[in-house]
C-alpha cells in the first residue's frame, strides 16, 4: 500500500500544486489554510488563504510542512548491511517524512576519521534518493572511549558533530577535551547520557513493571547522574572555550530533564532531544499494555495500575520493546512531553535502531537494544496531537526548526516554507492511517513494537531539494 513507486525517487518535481491544505511553517511561526505550487523543483508560491477561501480547510486533513530532520539515526552500513543500508535507511526516512538524516558513527568500522567519511561519501554519491545524509564523527578513536578521534580531520570532512553514541563518552576527562576541542572547531558533542555503573545487565526501567516481571532494573538515576556529570564538565570548560556546545540525546527521565531545564535557565549552551517512543510509549508495554503513555496516568499525573484496569491486552516480554534508554514510567513520559512543550527539549529525534530478526527475535534479556523508528515517529507524534496533548505546530517544529537550532546551518536550508527555494517538503494526511507491518516498513529493521497497529498520519510525499524522495502509491492512481 505505501511502498515507494521506485521510478519516482530522485525524479525532479516538475509541476505540483496543492490547494486547500493546512500549511505549517515553523521558521515563520505560522500555520493555516493555504496552497503551494512547485515548478521545476522550486517552491514557486506559498499562498495563505483567508476568509471564504479558507472555509472548510482545517489542520485535521492534508498537512504540508518542511521535510523533517532526524538528529539521531543508525544505518548499519558498513558492518551490518542485513539490518540497514544507507539506501534502505534513506528510503525508510523518506517514508517517515524525513528529508535529512544525521547518522551516528557507531558502524563497523566506526566513522572515526576521514577514511570513514570518504567511505560514506562514496555510498551517498551513488544513491538515487535525494535525502540528505549527514554524519557525526566519533569522539574517540575506534569509539573506544580513550584517545580523541581526529576531530579536526573529521570537521574538514564535513561532520555535523561528535558522538560516541551507543555508549556515553566514558570519561569526564575525555568529554572535557572533546568539548574544548569541538568548541574550537565550532561543533557540538552529542552525548548518550548513561552511568554504566548503574546499568550493568539492566533490562527494563527500574520500577513497578520491572519488579513484577522480574527484569533487571535500569534506574532513572543512571541518566540523571550522567547528565549531571556532563553539565558540570560543560560549565567548567566555558571559561576557556565559550563556543563549547553539548547536546544530550534521547533524554528519557523526569530528573534528567529537570537538570537540563535548570542548566538552560542558567544559560549553559546545552540542547537535548527526546525520542518519539519515550513520549508515546511507557514501560507498561512490556507487561502487555498497548495504550499511549498519556492514557497511563491518572488525573493527578500518577501512573495507573495496568494490572487492575484491564489494559494488559498483549503477551508480555515483547523483545521489540527492548531499547536503550529503556521505555520509562508513564510519569517520565509525561515529563518528556512537558519538556517538549516548555522548550527544555529542543527536538524530537528518532534514535532509529534497525536490527535483524537474528538479533531481535530472541529472549527479552538477550535481544539487541533498539527500535526501528524512523517511519513511525510522525505517527506517534500525531497520536499525541490527536489526543490534544501536543500542538501540531510544536510537533512539526520539533522535527524541523528544533533540529536546526541544535546543529545550526550545517544541516542546510529547509525549516520553513520559503518561496524561491528548492522545495524540501513533506505532505501527509492526518485523516488517513496506515498499518505498521513488515511489508509496509521500508527499513530492513522490522523491529517495531507497533507492528499490527494503525498509526495516524499517512505520508503522501516527501520532496528534498526539488526531487521526490517518497511518493505514496495512492497518488499514482
Amino acid at each position, binding site marked *: 500500500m505505501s511502498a515507494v513507486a521506485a521510478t519516482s525517487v530522485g525524479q525532479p518535481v516538475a509541476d505540483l500544486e496543492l490547494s486547500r491544505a493546512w500549511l505549517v511553517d515553523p521558521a515563520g511561526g505560522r500555520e493555516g489554510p493555504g496552497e503551494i505550487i512547485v515548478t521545476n523543483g522550486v517552491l514557486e508560491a506559498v499562498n495563505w488563504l483567508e476568509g471564504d477561501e479558507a472555509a472548510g480547510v482545517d489542520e485535521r486533513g492534508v498537512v504540508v510542512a518542511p521535510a523533517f530532520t532526524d538528529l539521531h539515526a543508525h544505518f548499519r552500513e558498513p558492518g551490518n548491511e542485513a539490518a540497514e543500508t544507507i539506501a534502505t535507511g534513506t528510503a525508510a526516512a523518506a517514508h517517515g517524512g524525513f528529508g535529512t538524516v544525521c547518522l551516528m558513527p557507531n558502524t563497523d568500522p566506526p566513522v572515526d576519521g576521514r577514511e570513514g567519511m570518504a567511505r560514506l561519501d562514496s555510498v551517498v554519491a551513488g544513491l538515487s534518493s535525494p535525502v540528505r545524509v549527514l554524519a557525526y564523527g566519533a569522539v574517540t578513536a575506534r569509539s573506544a572511549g580513550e584517545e580523541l578521534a581526529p576531530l579536526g580531520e573529521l570537521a574538514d570532512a564535513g561532520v555535523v558533530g561528535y558522538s560516541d553514541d551507543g555508549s556515553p563518552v566514558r570519561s569526564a576527562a575525555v568529554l572535557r577535551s572533546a568539548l574544548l576541542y569541538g568548541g574550537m572547531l565550532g561543533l557540538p558533542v552529542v552525548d548518550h547520557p548513561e552511568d554504566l555503573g548503574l546499568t550493568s545487565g539492566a533490562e527494563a526501567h*527500574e520500577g513497578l513493571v520491572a519488579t513484577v516481571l522480574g527484569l533487571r532494573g535500569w534506574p532513572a538515576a543512571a541518566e540523571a547522574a550522567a547528565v549531571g556529570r556532563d553539565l558540570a564538565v560543560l560549565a567548567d570548560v566555558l571559561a576557556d572555550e565559550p563556543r563549547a556546545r553539548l547536546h544530550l540525546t534521547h533524554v528519557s527521565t523526569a530528573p534528567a530533564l529537570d537538570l537540563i531545564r535548570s542548566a538552560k535557565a542558567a544559560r549553559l549552551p546545552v540542547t537535548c532531544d527526546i525520542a518519539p517512543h519515550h513520549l508515546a510509549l511507557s514501560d507498561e508495554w512490556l507487561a502487555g499494555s498497548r*495504550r*499511549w503513555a498519556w492514557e497511563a496516568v491518572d488525573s493527578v499525573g500518577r*501512573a495507573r495500575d495496568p494490572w487492575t484496569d484491564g489494559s494488559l491486552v498483549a503477551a508480555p516480554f515483547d523483545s521489540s520493546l527492548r531499547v536503550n534508554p529503556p521505555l520509562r514510567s508513564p510519569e517520565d513520559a509525561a515529563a518528556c512531553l512537558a519538556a517538549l512543550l516548555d522548550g527544555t527539549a529542543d527536538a524530537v529525534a528518532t534514535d532509529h535502531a534497525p536490527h535483524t530478526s537474528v538479533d531481535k527475535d*530472541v*529472549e*527479552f534479556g538477550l535481544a539487541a537494544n533498539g527500535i526501528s523508528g524512523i517511519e513511525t515517529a510522525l505517527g506517534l507524534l500525531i497520536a499525541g496531537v490527536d489526543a490534544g496533548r501536543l500542538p501540531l505546530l510544536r510537533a512539526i517544529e520539533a522535527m524541523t526548526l528544533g533540529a536546526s537550532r541544535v546543529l545550526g546551518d550545517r544541516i542546510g536550508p529547509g525549516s520553513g516554507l520559503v518561496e524561491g527555494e528548492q522545495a524540501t517538503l513533506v505532505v501527509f494526511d492526518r485523516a488517513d492511517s496506515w498499518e505498521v507491518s513488515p511489508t509496509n516498513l521500508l527499513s530492513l529493521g522490522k523491529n517495531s513494537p507497533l507492528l499490527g*497497529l494503525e498509526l495516524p498520519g499517512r505520508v503522501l510525499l516527501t520532496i528534498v531539494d526539488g526531487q521526490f524522495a517518497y511518493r505514496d502509491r495512492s497518488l499514482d492512481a
Partner: protein
Amino acid sequence: MSVGLEREPSQAVEPASGQSDSGGAGRAAERPTWPHRHLLDTDVLTGGDVELVMATADAMKQVLARPIPTVPALRGRNVTLLFYEASTRTRVSFEVAGKNLSANVVNIATAASSVTKGESLVDTVRTLEALGAQLLVIRHGVSGAPYLAARHFGGHIVNAGDGWHAHPTQALLDLYTIRERLGQSLAGRKVVVLGDVLHSRVARSNVWTLTAAGADLWLCGPATLLRGFEAWARVGAAGRRFTVTSDVNAALRDADVVMALRVQRERMASALVPSLREYAARFGLTAERLELARPEAFVMHPGPMNEGVEIAPAVAEGPRSVITTQVANGVAVRMAVLQLLAGRVA
C-alpha cells in the same frame, strides 16, 4: 487507540481480582474447566483455576499412594524437558510426574553457555515440536523466555522457572502444602517469605497465589534485596496487598508459615550483601528467631538450601520443617498441571 493484538486464550486477562472472582475458598460446587493452553505464571489464574489444580493434585496424591503409582492420562504423549539451567530437583520432579502419567519423557539438558552463543530458542522449540514434543517444560535463566517459546510452539508450555520472573508450579505446590496444614482458606494467616526476594521467581509467583488466597503476606530481607517491592506493595498491582519490611522480628512475629529463600554467593560480588556471615547473623532463619512465630508455625524452602546461611541446619531438619513434604507434593502438583494441560479426560 485501535489495537490489533489479542492475547492467546492461555494468556487471557482475567477480571481484576479482589472482590469478584478470586479467593478460592467457598467457591460454588459447579466444576470449572481448565481454560489455559500454557502455564507460564500464576498471575492469570483465577480462584477457580487454582481450585482445579488443588483438586486434581489431591487425586494425583491418591495415585501416588498406590503400589504402582501410574495412570494412563498421557499415554502416547511426549513431554520434553528443556532445561537451560542446571536443576536436579525440578527436572526430576517433572520427569517423575510425566512418567507417572505414562508419558514419554525426553530430557534435554542444554549447557547454559549455548544460550549466550546465540543459539536460537525459537529454532530449538520448533525443532522439538517437529520431533514430536507436545508438552514442553522449560527452565531458562532469562525472564520471559517461556513467553517467547509459547509464541512459536504448537503444543503446551510449562514454565519451570524463568530468570527472576516466575516459577508457577513451585508456587502451586507451596500453596498445596500450606493448605494441607491450614485448610482451604488462608484468610488472616500470616505467611512470611524471608530472603533474597529481588532475585526470586519463587517469591514473585507466590505473591500472586498467596495474596489471591487471602493470606497476610510479608516479604522480608535486606533492603538491597527488596528493591522495587516496596513500590509494588504500595501500588498493590492487581489489588494485591502485602507487607514489605527489613525488620525480621516484626516479620516473624506470630507468623503461621515461614518460607526461606536461597541467598547466592554472587550477591556479594554485586555489592548487594556484605558477606554471607553477616547475612546469616541478621536474616538467617534460626531456631531462636523462629520462636517469634506461632507455636504451630511451619517452615518451607523451595531448595536448594544454603544451610547455615538463610536457614540453620537445626531448622531445616527440625520438626517444623515441611521441606521434604514440599518435594513430595511437587510431583502431585506437576502431575495435576500436566494432566490439566494435555491429559485425556478419565
